[in-house]
């Protein structure tokens, strides 16, 4: 194998950074969308929603998620202050089904529109991720299936976290 020179390494790193910066500046079609399965790498498996228990399984998961969120003193104030917890839950049931490739419609606002005024930090976003895993445990959703939903929701971090 031909050895890689230090210069090659430096140039490759710079090119990679340049390419990434370019793509970030482009319009964020994935994080701003309100329809369609998340185009994750590698793809979300076709049977993901089914493994989640279908729409009924997603509904149970969202109920569990909000149980943990509202019990989580790091973030429950945000949800309570924002209000309309029942509506948030209903929209989440639509959203989670949508990102996994479900047939239903998501009727809410885009993630950036819905969170614009909230000043959400990545620390708070991660707290919800931790509650999402707890909800998977509660719903007995296998961890690797849970990660498919995590992958499907992860890009929304770019729209939700504004601080």
């Amino acid at each position, binding site marked *: 194998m031909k*050895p*890689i*020179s*230090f210069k*090659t*390494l*430096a140039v*490759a*790193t710079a090119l*990679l*950074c340049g*390419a*990434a*910066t370019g*793509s*970030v500046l482009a319009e964020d079609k*994935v994080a701003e969308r309100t329809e369609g399965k*998340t*185009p*994750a*790498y*590698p*793809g*979300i*498996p076709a049977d993901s929603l089914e493994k989640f228990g279908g729409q009924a399984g997603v509904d149970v998961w969202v109920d569990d998620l909000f149980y943990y969120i509202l019990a989580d003193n790091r973030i429950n104030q945000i949800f309570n202050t924002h209000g309309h917890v029942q509506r948030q839950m209903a929209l989440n049931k639509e959203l989670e089904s949508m990102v996994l490739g479900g047939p239903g419609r998501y009727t809410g606002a885009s993630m950036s529109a819905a969170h614009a005024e909230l000043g959400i*930090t*990545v*620390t*708070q976003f*991660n*707290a919800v*991720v*931790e509650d999402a*895993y707890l909800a998977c445990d509660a719903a007995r959703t296998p*961890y*690797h299936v849970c*990660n*498919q939903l*995590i*992958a*499907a929701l*992860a*890009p929304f*971090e*770019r729209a939700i976290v504004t601080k």
Partner: protein
Amino acid sequence: MKGLKGSKLPVRRCAALLATGMALLGGSAHAGILDFYNDGKVLATPGVSMTDGAGGGGITPWAVITGYETRDGINADFHYTYVNLPNYSLNSLGAAVGFYDRVELSYAYDILPTGSTFNTIGLVSNAVGGLLSSPTLGPILSGLGLTTGNQLAGGVDPWNTTIKMHVVGAKVRLIGEAIYDSDNLIPQVSVGGFYKWNENKVLLETLQAAKSKDWEAYASITKIFFPVSTLLNVTARYTGANQTGLTGFGGPDGDHKKVRVEASLAYLLKKDTAIGVEFQQHGHNVDGRNVTLGGGLDLTSLVNNPLLGPTLKGLGVDSALVSTLTQKESNWYDAFVAFFPSKNLSITMAMAYLGQITFTPNQVGYYISLQTSF
């Protein structure tokens, strides 16, 4: 504040200042002074501490920044790693701080007891040293550059040679999201460097390394593929290290820095458990090399010397013995399981396949690492 002003004794003034400081820290944990503390990363996502001290896998630095802090704060961790090998045991102690999920600073102290590995060098140097006082052979050795016994110690403390190396490191995250950007293939990219200084200069000269202190630079890319619960890291490290620097840097022909490839592949079994494998390419700076005494006198030439050879052979130092002192370096592999019972503790266990280290082949052993984060 009376204590501060009133006391003339510097010690007492310091104590008063310290007490005031503690009171400030303790009293305002929720308002201001400790606001930089953060442990908001999701469990297991910072990885563990590698033996050079950086955040990563067991032997490879990753593009993730160490500690549980997000971009909202600071977090620190400490590690102790023990690797048990047939002829060595590696102890790595270290501390690292992650700043705003952007910059990482680390320190590690690697201690490598080598058991009896280098005792043959001690035996040979004693035999050669004994000849220095010989009226016939002494002058020959002097002619070869060996004049005093202490040049022959070889840096070896019989039965108790321990190699010690300090490593300071820094890493900066440049671009990319290892975790959130599951919809693109752009990895998280970080660059970093280490400065390593090894305390066993004389032994490293005996092992023909060019340097006992050197720097390394690396670029790492990390991406977690959540749909398949898999993390991939690839690191290119520009280094001339022999056995990560534990046996020095470079060889007889210079420091030989090259880009070497490392990789870690981890499968996330559950949110607090990961299994995986790692690979680290190593150099061949001293492969096939013997050892030298007194700063450059090759043992092979010594036993082949027509005047010295027969006497040395009589003392048990022949080419067969010297050939057991032929060095080789192998690529490193490991297979690990890491547990994260909480954000304050991780426990990593691994089998390490480190091949030949200096003269001793088949260095396969177990690795255990504890990391605590605050």
